[in-house]
């Protein structure tokens, strides 16, 4: 019996409630004190294409997903066909018993490549192409198969409640499927009920009806089906206060807490969720003078394009406001010129860059880390910028205030790199601690009365006192042209050199001032021969894989670099220490981070573990890749390709 150790997947057509189903499941688990990590996959489509959600549950902290599925929860044949090969022996499949005759060829959303792949898998196993065939195959291979008569159950519920309409309410099937799985897991129905209440909190009637149907299915399953090899049970967790949250929400909350009061954006997947959340929560509570209750707010503007998004944010930045925009690759491409202007005029602005698969439109809803070098180099000419990457949802929250601090202290644009995997993952994390959020505004001055104000005054650090537009006695000028200390255009060759040096000097100061812990972090055995180097959302799978490998006696360390530009060479060298082998793990084809590290520390990277198929690395993949390296069986480059 596996207790509180589960890899659970729900799938279905987009628009059928896969998300809300997974949300109910995750939340029900979290309400019981369990840790969850959920990964969402979806097409660039509104209705009909396949989407799925994998949720891992444990009584201990988990940070990544597994390819292997213990519970496959379906209510359409496509999910079963697409994911049958991942279900482990002893695992569980829930399916619609009325769909047994449907074949792979009858499903238009299974495209040719997937159709071929599924049939290849089935024919190799000698299995036919219908749901019934697949179910029989599963049963023969030790998988417990549970056919749920969803339609009949709806009819039964309609009869029970005396409301014939209910028989037709197949919109509730997603919740019924989730409830069936939780019944098989013998999980406390009260927590399921609370989770449903939460997910449908805006619609009480819908919530009530879904609770009725969930309970109906729950009881049906308990009465009619045998036990599984799995069990979920609540654990007491009074000491740690957890929240369950997605990456884009953490970024939005980080902006509110970090003092961002202006955000402009143009709709783009997967970045716009953040802006919409901010708009929805534009007014929030503040501690006023003398501890009084006050309200603060953020102005969110949906612009006509990303050029307007970044330039508007810069305009707000000139007025002294912490301002940002959130976008993804195609939008960031349009922002390059604005970024340069902000660098040239030393205006703090934050670009939250949610990476997705590129180039061009690429994979709009899929994961990647392809924009690192673009973030480091975007824009013509030379100007200072800071590029900073968070590694997980919790980091995102605390990093947001930091990136705004960097922007204001070094008076320059900061690109905060997030990615689709983090944006759309859901995880239980420690409740955010506001006492850890510090606001540092650098050389921003409220009052100026010290003679002629020079916005670009030459100083030892390259950082000049900065005022907000509207400050008395401190008129200044800005221009994208090279300029003098006042901000007026100049083409003088001497001033040019001094101004370039002044601007770039700020990066040296940033490298001196930014805390080591904020530059790069080390995990694992510090004197290990093997050092993983990586950045961004690979962190979760790497740490989980290291835990597994450690229990097998392997020693590994992991250097997570957060400050990617300017590159903290000394810190990284220090953390790598005497390790003999460097293993670069990242989500792109050309090992972009590896290129930077190699150039900076003048050392070859021994192994690359790369993935660029649009799906985040699973724990299973990272574990195998690392193990083959540790066993000295790996090629220099390993390309991972698991997906769904």
């Amino acid at each position, binding site marked *: 019996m596996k207790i509180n150790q589960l890899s659970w997947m729900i799938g279905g057509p987009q628009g059928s409630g896969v998300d809300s189903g997974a949300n109910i499941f995750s939340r029900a688990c979290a309400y019981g004190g369990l840790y969850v990590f959920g990964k969402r996959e979806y097409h660039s489509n509104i209705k009909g294409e396949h989407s799925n959600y994998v949720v891992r549950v444990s009584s201990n902290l988990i940070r990544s997903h597994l390819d292997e599925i213990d519970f496959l929860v379906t209510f359409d044949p496509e999910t079963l066909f697409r994911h049958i090969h991942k279900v482990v022996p002893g695992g569980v499949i829930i399916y619609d018993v009325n769909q047994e005759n449907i074949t792979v060829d009858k499903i238009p959303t299974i495209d040719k490549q997937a159709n071929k792949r599924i049939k290849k898998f089935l024919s190799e196993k000698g299995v036919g192409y219908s749901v019934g065939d697949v179910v029989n195959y599963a049963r023969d291979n030790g998988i417990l198969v549970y056919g749920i008569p969803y339609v009949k159950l709806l009819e039964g519920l309609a009869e029970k409640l005396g409301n014939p309409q209910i028989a037709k309410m197949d919109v509730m099937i997603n919740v019924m499927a989730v409830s069936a799985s939780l019944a098989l897991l013998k999980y406390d129905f009260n927590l399921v009920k609370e989770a449903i209440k939460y997910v449908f909190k805006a619609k009480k009637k819908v919530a009530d009806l879904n609770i009725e149907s969930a309970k109906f299915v729950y009881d049906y399953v308990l009465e009619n089906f045998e036990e599984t090899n799995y069990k979920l049970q609540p654990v007491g967790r009074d000491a740690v206060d957890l929240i369950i949250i997605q990456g884009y929400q953490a970024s939005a909350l980080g902006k509110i807490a970090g003092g961002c009061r202006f955000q402009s954006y143009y709709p783009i997947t997967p970045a716009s969720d953040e802006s919409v959340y901010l708009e929805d929560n534009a*007014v929030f509570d503040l*501690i006023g003078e003398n501890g009084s209750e006050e309200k603060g707010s953020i102005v969110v503007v949906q612009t006509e394009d990303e050029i307007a998004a970044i330039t508007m944010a810069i305009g707000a930045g000139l007025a002294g*406001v912490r301002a940002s925009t959130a976008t993804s690759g195609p939008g960031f491409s349009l922002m390059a010129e604005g970024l340069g202007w902000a660098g040239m005029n030393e205006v703090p602005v934050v670009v939250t860059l949610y990476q997705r698969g590129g180039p061009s439109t690429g994979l709009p809803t899929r994961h990647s880390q392809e924009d690192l070098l673009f973030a480091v180099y975007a824009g013509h000419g030379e100007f200072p910028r800071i590029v900073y990457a968070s590694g997980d949802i919790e980091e995102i929250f605390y990093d947001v205030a930091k990136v705004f601090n960097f922007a204001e202290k070094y008076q320059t644009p900061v690109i905060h790199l997030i990615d689709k995997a983090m944006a759309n993952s859901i995880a239980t994390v420690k409740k955010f601690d506001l006492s850890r959020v510090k*606001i540092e505004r650098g050389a921003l001055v409220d009052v100026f009365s010290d003679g002629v104000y020079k916005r670009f005054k030459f100083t030892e650090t390259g950082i000049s006192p900065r005022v907000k537009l509207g400050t008395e006695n401190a008129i200044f*000028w800005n221009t994208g042209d090279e300029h003098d200390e006042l901000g007026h255009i100049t083409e003088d060759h001497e001033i040019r050199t001094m101004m370039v040096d002044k601007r770039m000097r700020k990066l040296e100061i940033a490298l001196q001032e930014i805390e080591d812990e904020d530059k790069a972090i080390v995990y694992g055995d510090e004197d290990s021969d093997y050092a993983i180097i990586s950045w961004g959302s690979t962190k979760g799978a790497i740490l989980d894989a290291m835990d597994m490998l450690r229990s097998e006696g392997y020693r590994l360390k992991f250097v997570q670099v957060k400050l990617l530009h300017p590159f903290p060479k000394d810190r990284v060298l220090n953390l790598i220490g005497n390790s003999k082998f460097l293993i670069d793990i990242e989500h792109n084809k050309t090992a972009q981070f590896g290129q930077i590290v190699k150039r900076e520390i003048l050392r070859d990277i021994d192994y690359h573990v790369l993935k660029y198929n649009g799906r985040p690395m699973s724990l299973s993949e990272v574990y195998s890749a690392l193990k083959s390296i540790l066993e000295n069986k790996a090629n220099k480059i390993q390309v991972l390709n698991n997906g769904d």
Partner: protein
Amino acid sequence: MAIKIDEIKKLTLEEYKTDVHNDWCPGCGDFGILQSVQLALFELGIPRHKAVVFSGIGCSGKTPHYVNVYGIHTLHGRAVPFAIGAKLANPDLNVIVVGGDGDGLGIGVGHFVSSGRRNVNLTYIVYNNAVYGLTKGQASPTLKLGMKTKSLPKPNINDAVNPIALALVSGYTFIARGYAYDVKHLKEIIKKAILHKGLAFIDVLQPCPTYNDINTKDWYSGKDRIDPVTGKPIPRIYKLEENGYDPYVHNPDDPNEIQQKWIQVVERSLEWGDKIPIGIFYVNEHVSSYEERIQGTIEHYLEKPPAHQKISLSDGRTNVKIDRLLAEFTTRVI
């Protein structure tokens, strides 16, 4: 616009000028626009630190450097979104945007149109000379089809946009045209535009003495057509207000009136060649400004706009309380 007249002291006109060397060509229409902007700020008594001039790229882009108020010389075509960002962050600022016709109606035309939908309280002045001056006289979006200025190798095969009509259909609530060499008239328009609540657009006919040898000062003043009776030129430019033209929308609830106003704006905007109107084409003071619309969802917006909000406690910690927001994510059953 809620102008806060200088409480401190009335400045002199000179104090609105900088000592930066002005490198526009001699005789450039830009000088008249610059002077009009300075005069408008001076006569309205706007404190220097409460005014910001944003500009795009090109000859007109240099304007802010010659005005002694906050001056932000931005990117080609992007002056308006920069300005909107600053204005929404701090609505107390008096924001004027200047730019060329290529800037606003070519590369930046998307922002030109989209800004009309917002009606942010600012004044946008377009220097309209039908050429790209600083890059040596290519055809701009306002050069008419078939025209060949001396700098063009071949006649223009693009048709021209109609800035006045475009502003109208985009939603600008104050639409006017000035003439760069009639400073007295132009500065009055600019003053009215600044005082207007909402987005004001001023199309300024601005001869480029170096590259546009068609729409010259002499051409506008009709030196090529002498009245046989008086022996004097018959000016092409006339003032709308001198002909009893009423640009104001008086009753916003009367669809017929709005329709009539739109028709008269379009009719007048089509006049060119023999008769070219300047003056105020259209004013609708009844449309809500973007600031008012924000105020609709953020009650304290105008009282505590982003630029006036404190974001930390005295010890540097954030002053935000997110417990209410975090409640949504709690793992405890509520």
